[in-house]
């Protein structure tokens, strides 16, 4: 099945992902030990777990940055009806905020966003970049080099870069890292709008992130295995409450 390219903001193809027995090895170290999860389009999944649980590896596999050593990852298009087997088409619908900012320090904020807007084949780039920078609170720093930015400003720009092409699957690895109070509010508002828009979100985060309250499902990983899963339509609050109590 073909996938509608995210070349406009009105593209709202539902997009989900399923992991089937996914295993990932790095030499003798096993980061994921047969993870099976089906994430439906429009779900907001909080991915929880201690350091080394396998959250980042799972997100990298979902972003097509790493291949599973065993098992399979499938993208579902529409309401669970079809598969998207073309990685090139899937990439147009995926956005990721990683541990690193994925930004060029020696380019300005506007140049960074313009570069990726061009690579994603977006139209009306100047207006789109200006809107995006305004929305993330960097409207007055469009011409500043990223290396002059604080950690929080870089993180805002990293989030803006991930959202620029209107992804239908958003992968967030500790997105609140470095954000100040105002930044956290912006992140929460943005994620809430995305959830309402039907965007599928898979977010790895710690217990103190207030954006966790937006989650419709909680999945806890431990030692590369799924330890708890509130399931689609289930109540994520007990898992989140337990996590907060531990923290």
């Amino acid at each position, binding site marked *: 099945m073909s996938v509608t390219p995210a070349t406009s903001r009105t593209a709202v193809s539902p997009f989900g992902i399923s992991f089937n027995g996914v295993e990932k090895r790095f030499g003798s170290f096993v980061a994921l030990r047969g993870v099976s999860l089906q994430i439906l389009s429009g779900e907001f999944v909080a991915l929880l777990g201690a350091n080394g649980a396998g959250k980042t590896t799972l997100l*990298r596999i979902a*972003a*097509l*940055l*790493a*291949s599973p050593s065993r098992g399979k990852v499938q993208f579902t298009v529409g309401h669970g009806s079809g598969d998207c087997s073309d990685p*090139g*088409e899937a*990439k*147009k619908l*995926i956005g*990721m905020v*990683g*541990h*690193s*900012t*994925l*930004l*060029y*320090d*020696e*380019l300005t904020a506007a*140049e960074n966003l313009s*570069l*990726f807007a*061009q*690579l*994603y*084949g977006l139209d009306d780039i100047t207006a789109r970049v200006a809107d995006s920078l305004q929305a993330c609170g960097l409207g007055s720093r469009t011409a500043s080099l990223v290396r002059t930015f604080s950690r929080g400003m870089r993180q805002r720009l990293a989030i803006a*870069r991930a959202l620029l092409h209107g992804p239908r699957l958003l992968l967030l690895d500790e997105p609140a890292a470095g954000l100040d109070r105002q930044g956290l509010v912006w992140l929460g508002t943005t994620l809430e709008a995305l959830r309402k828009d039907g965007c599928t979100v898979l977010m790895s985060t710690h217990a103190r992130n207030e954006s966790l309250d937006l989650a419709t499902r909680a999945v806890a990983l431990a030692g590369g295995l799924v330890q708890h899963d509130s399931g689609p339509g289930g109540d994520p609050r007990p898992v989140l409450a337990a996590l907060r109590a531990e923290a």
Partner: protein
Amino acid sequence: MSTTRAMAILLAKELRLEFRTRELLSATIVFALVIVVLFSFAFDPTAAESRRYGPGLLWIAFLFAGSLMLNPSFAREQTNDTLDALRMAPISAFAILSAKMLANFIFMSLVELVLVPVFSVLYNVSLTGVAGRLILVLVLGTIGLTVTGTVFSAISSHARMRELLLPLLLLPILTPLLIGAVEATASLLVDQPELDRTWVALLAGFDIVFLTASWLLCDYLIEE
């Protein structure tokens, strides 16, 4: 998006980054000049001596300068994991690789543009009558150097000792190219200069083989 379009976008990014900082280009030019000047002190650069040793010295300087310049080509993408961002974009791996190859070719050509006239003066070698043919040899040699160097820069970028690893991998592989380029250049510095087509064919063959290999293997080179 077509590979050519993606390559053009990424090439513009590479050029903008380099011309904004000029770190790589200035360091490489100075390094290459130092090599040529030091060799001129070590040998007596009379015209006859220069014709014998000059082509070898010139290409050794290019190779050393190239191995210095090509090393950060992929390593600089690791600062903020920007290569991941490129890999997530809906573009082909060959677009990423070829943009870097083309950028490195432009940078290396600029180094040669500075170095060749300095070599001509320091080593008392007139290049006026053979400029066109010399440019052909330089272009073919530089394509081979930058294509191979960019590929090995991608391979060595994840290694801990990458600064050491790249020359160790690259220089032995470049031996046929060095021989071809030196012999072709030497054929232009004699009293009756005539470009030796055998060596030009070797250079062109080297370029074709490595360009084809990089196109076939680009997915493996760019992946994690």
